[in-house]
């Protein structure tokens, strides 16, 4: 996804002198071409995220389209108040890019596990929160966030689901259907959608025809499709590589309750109010925390008494 992001940004910068890329001293091996081709539009601001976000606000209020880049929580939590006050309150034009959503940097430890960002950032007014599910979505999200006014958060995952031909074109705020089905809807955001796809194949063997809904935009969320899925399928299973509190599952539940739509079944699959002090690959940690495809299958079987 990171490559999709920088390639997309490079394409945009070819025709837009106002794009400014700030990095908090991360992106070794990623930004060299961008820096060489657009030297006046690239600044490595050092390991100083609060200043990076303040600079981004200042630049953007002068008409620049700013992209700030760091990894994991450094891009967001380290400078959260700057994001709230300087960026969101001032309707700045900034795309905050965090490489390494969820357990992407699983082996690096707790500091690098990005597992509360969606909840925290979606609480901020004037914020768009996007966690692409596929590489193509990462490319399109970059294009749309950078070209659209406002503050956006782009969470890039190391893993990505396969793109599906039948899914709708990418548009911020609109979910995409990766598989049609009627028995249940598996809803996921980010690269972990790949686990939902794998789970759906396994569930088929148990006679379950599940719909898969990819929600790349956690805020503003696609209420219409969530309500439709709640009403037209046998229930909603929400999967996220993120703590459950305030995450995608919460957002989906809010939509249902706000519209007094009660799904027949409802289950949130995510981290249970926890930090991981063990390390490992992204797939290993998904298994450990029971958010991988096997765990999804088991949870669904239990839910459906299969």
């Amino acid at each position: 996804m990171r490559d999709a992001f920088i390639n997309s940004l490079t394409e945009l910068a070819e025709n837009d002198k106002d794009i400014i890329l700030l990095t908090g001293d991360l992106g070794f091996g990623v930004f060299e071409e961008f820096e060489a081709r657009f030297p006046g539009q690239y600044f490595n601001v050092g390991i100083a995220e609060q200043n990076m976000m303040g600079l981004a606000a200042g630049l953007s209020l002068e008409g620049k389209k700013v992209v700030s880049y760091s990894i994991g929580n450094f891009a967001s939590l380290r400078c959260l108040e700057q994001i709230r006050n300087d960026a969101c309150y001032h309707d700045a034009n900034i795309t905050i890019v965090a490489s390494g959503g969820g357990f992407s940097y699983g082996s690096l430890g707790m500091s690098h596990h990005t597992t509360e960002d969606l909840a925290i950032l979606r609480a901020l007014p004037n914020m768009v929160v996007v966690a692409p599910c596929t590489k193509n979505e990462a490319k399109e999200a970059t294009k749309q966030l950078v070209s659209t006014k406002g503050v956006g958060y782009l969470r890039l995952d190391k893993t990505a689901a396969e793109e599906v031909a039948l899914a709708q074109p990418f548009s911020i705020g609109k979910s995409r259907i990766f598989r049609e089905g009627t028995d249940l809807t598996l809803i996921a955001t980010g690269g972990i959608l790949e686990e939902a796809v794998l789970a759906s194949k396994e569930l088929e063997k148990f006679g379950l025809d599940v719909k898969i809904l990819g929600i790349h935009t956690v805020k503003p969320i696609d209420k219409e499709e969530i309500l439709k899925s709640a009403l037209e399928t046998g229930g909603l299973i929400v999967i996220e590589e993120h703590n459950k509190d305030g995450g995608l599952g919460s957002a989906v539940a809010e939509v249902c309750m706000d519209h007094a739509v009660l799904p027949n079944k409802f289950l949130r699959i995510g981290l249970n109010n926890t930090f991981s002090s063990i390390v490992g690959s992204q797939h290993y940690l998904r298994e450990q925390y029971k958010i991988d495809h096997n765990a999804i299958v088991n949870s669904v079987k239990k839910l459906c008494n299969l």
Partner: protein
Amino acid sequence: MTNLGVSSHIASILSMADILAVLYGEVLRYKSEEPKWAGRDRFILSKGHAGAGVYAALAESGFFPVEKLKSHYQDGSDLSGHVSHKGIPGVEFSTGSLGHGLPVAAGMALAAKINNKKNRAFVLLGDGECDEGSNWEAILFAAHHKLENLVAIVDRNMLQSIYSTEDTLSLEPFAEKWKAFGWNVVEVDGHNHEEILNACKVKSKVENKPLCIIASTIKGKGVSFMEKNILWHYRSPQGSEYEAAMAELELNNA
């Protein structure tokens, strides 16, 4: 304003009143009838708790009617205790949480350099807020990128929220710190208009350095019982105290 609104921070406002008077009276380029004029100098009050001072300066400079100041702190007012830009012509940036102004001003100065514009970015900081690490991130950045169009003025009144700056987290040797970080530093009496004005005229461009003006001030300046008294960071002048304060200020003006 602080009397009608029963608001705090009068001493912080008096501390920087002379600096604002020089900035809005003689230094900053702006058009009050066209607040968003592209050629304006940018000014950010980083010590946002003294926002009433900026509102007053803007009203006196013609950005909006002086009458509006009476709504400060009142129910439904957009003149908030900490300076806010929404609906207030002339306020460049909203602050209130300390340590935010300098990075943003550095961003504005950088944009002006990129765009080859002549305008400067000014930011007024409290000395206490120099405890915030975000400032020092921006101080490093501004020197590294030779932002000679950036001016940071520090209201050095030596007091912060509970104790003096030196008893809380000592800043001294303060000027040396800025110098060591690569800034051009000028120290002035923050109540001497001529000294402030001359400092703002210093051409940092020659040295390709951002400019720091350390303005030595007295918190609560002009009202004897408020001067250097931390109580007046919080207390609102009411009744006889208000009358006594106004009488002293009138006398000073005469």
